[in-house]
């Protein structure tokens, strides 16, 4: 009895310490975003200080940052929506027609280093006059999100009982009808988690926009990187911008943790 109490206490302490190590750097970043530039560079100023919104006011008054925020949202939303439209039906087909080998071909996209594609993409899209456009960024981000959504959803559809669709088909629905009316609604939670993950992957993507974007279409991570190179002393502003980048992620973690775990582990536990 006492041995198990000791174990439980020890476990609680360890888990608490791990959480502290994971969370504190993020807390530190958010805190720094609310500090003056004097406070940010003074390590004796901890987490207790009178917060200021000046850093946020500063970065949001910067037209380039607001524009890149808009770009990131637009590119993330459109690339995710288009990827859902093409990847979810494909995932259903792979799952229902037992074509896992065909489906796993898209995993090649996860293996190949992105840089080996960037030069040809740049060349290809330059021929089409698309470099620097939103479209080229949407397409490049879809290259990540289509395989991601496909992979998550294959597992999801395989987990749905096929009997429901069979029953719908004997009642006169076509196979596609069964997909649209039966499987798709049942797959809504899976689709939502896949879509949120795809959006976050797009939101976080740095390298594609680093090469394929121009001043007008630059996304947040690239802006943050540029901001750091020329304004490395403005820690408060940097932290405010980094915090703005992290807000959607924090919201997703808080409200969608369970679904995101399901999405992230899809395929991983099955191999």
């Amino acid at each position, binding site marked *: 009895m006492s041995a198990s109490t000791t174990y439980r206490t020890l476990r609680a302490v360890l888990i608490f310490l791990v959480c502290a190590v*994971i969370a504190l*750097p993020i807390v530190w970043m958010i805190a720094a975003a609310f500090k003056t530039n004097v406070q940010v560079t003074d390590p004796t100023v901890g987490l207790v200080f009178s917060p200021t919104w000046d850093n946020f006011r500063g970065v949001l008054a910067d037209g380039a940052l607001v524009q890149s925020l808009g770009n990131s949202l637009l590119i993330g939303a459109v690339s995710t929506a288009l990827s859902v439209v093409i990847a979810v039906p494909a995932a259903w087909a*792979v799952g229902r027609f037992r074509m896992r080998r065909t489906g796993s071909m898209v995993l090649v*996209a996860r293996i190949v*280093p992105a840089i080996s594609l960037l030069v*040809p993409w740049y060349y290809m899209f330059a021929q089409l006059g698309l470099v620097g456009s939103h479209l080229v960024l949407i397409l490049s981000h879809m290259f990540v999100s289509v395989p991601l959504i496909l992979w998550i959803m294959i597992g999801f559809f395989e987990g749905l009982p096929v009997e429901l669709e069979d029953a719908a088909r004997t009642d006169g629905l076509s196979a596609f009808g069964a997909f649209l009316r039966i499987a798709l609604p049942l797959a809504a939670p899976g689709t939502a988690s896949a879509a949120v993950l795809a959006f976050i992957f797009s939101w*976080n993507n740095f390298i594609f926009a680093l090469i394929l974007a121009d001043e007008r279409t630059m996304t947040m991570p690239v802006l943050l990187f540029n901001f*750091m190179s020329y304004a490395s002393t403005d820690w408060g502003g940097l932290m405010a911008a980094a915090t703005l980048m992290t807000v959607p992620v924090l919201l997703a973690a808080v409200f969608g943790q369970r679904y995101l775990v399901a999405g992230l582990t899809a395929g991983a*536990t099955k191999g």
Partner: protein
Amino acid sequence: MTTTSTRPAVGATPGRRTPSSGTRPMVTFEQANRRLKWALLTPALGFVGLMIVFPLAFTINLSLTDAFGAVNAGNSFVGLQNFADALTDTRRFWPAVGRTVVFTLVAVLLETVLGLALAMLMRKPFRGMEIVRTILMVPLLATPVAIGILWMLILDPTNGIANHLLGFVGIPPQEFLGSVSQSLPTLMLIDVWQWTPMMTVLLLAGLTTLPEEPEEAAKVDGANAWQRFVHIILPMLRTTILTALVLRGVDALKTFDLIYATKGPGGGSDFEAETLNVYAYGLTFDYQEYGLASAVLVLFTLFIVAIVVVLRRRTERSAS
């Protein structure tokens, strides 16, 4: 989207309705819906294929030329010269290979061990489990560039909180990312901070699918916790561990955002954090050495594919 709603016509075979409401349709699902199947698969597979097949062919082709300056400027075929140049380059290429391997091995090994330990701790439900799981999600979803900048503030040699805290326990200030020798180890630690939770999430998912009987039986037979972990849980978790290793390993080998954001082009002035990906990026976009860069990238891709194939084979063997 309106385009997809016009598509059902392809697969909607009117004669599908089978008179018998028996257990099975008369024609098999696969036969009746071959066209539907491809109609649904083609957009996704076609898109990924278009984005990857031509570019890879283009890169392989470039790797055999002396392309420099502009990809579409005239270049001539040089055979395997770029590969020979890369493989005999002990100043940039081989050190970059070494850093890539060391970075990946150390980081992924630590992430696996720590991730597994944390997953074992979190295996049985406890109060606050949901909060802990939420906290775990944050680093692995956060933007790598933002993570890099955040750690630069924390690890700033003069003004960072890290050195301030080290001072309390009597450790002299460290240079961290500002020094040649500490850059790569520091980056590994940041990587461990960011990705250990990912390993925990993956392994925890694997742990919850394990049957409880073998462990209970071992418990009855008097095996202690460590013995049960080593002899019962680890063997059953093998497949999950190997799969997680592949997933994380591939991403770790390709780590770019964090290194480039914190160390800049070339991984620092002495190339101290230059991994293969950073090297290839610099060759391509800073030096416009497209031929050599493509050769490096072809070698890098082959290297990753080889690792994945070997690990996958082991995974399949352990699964069967």
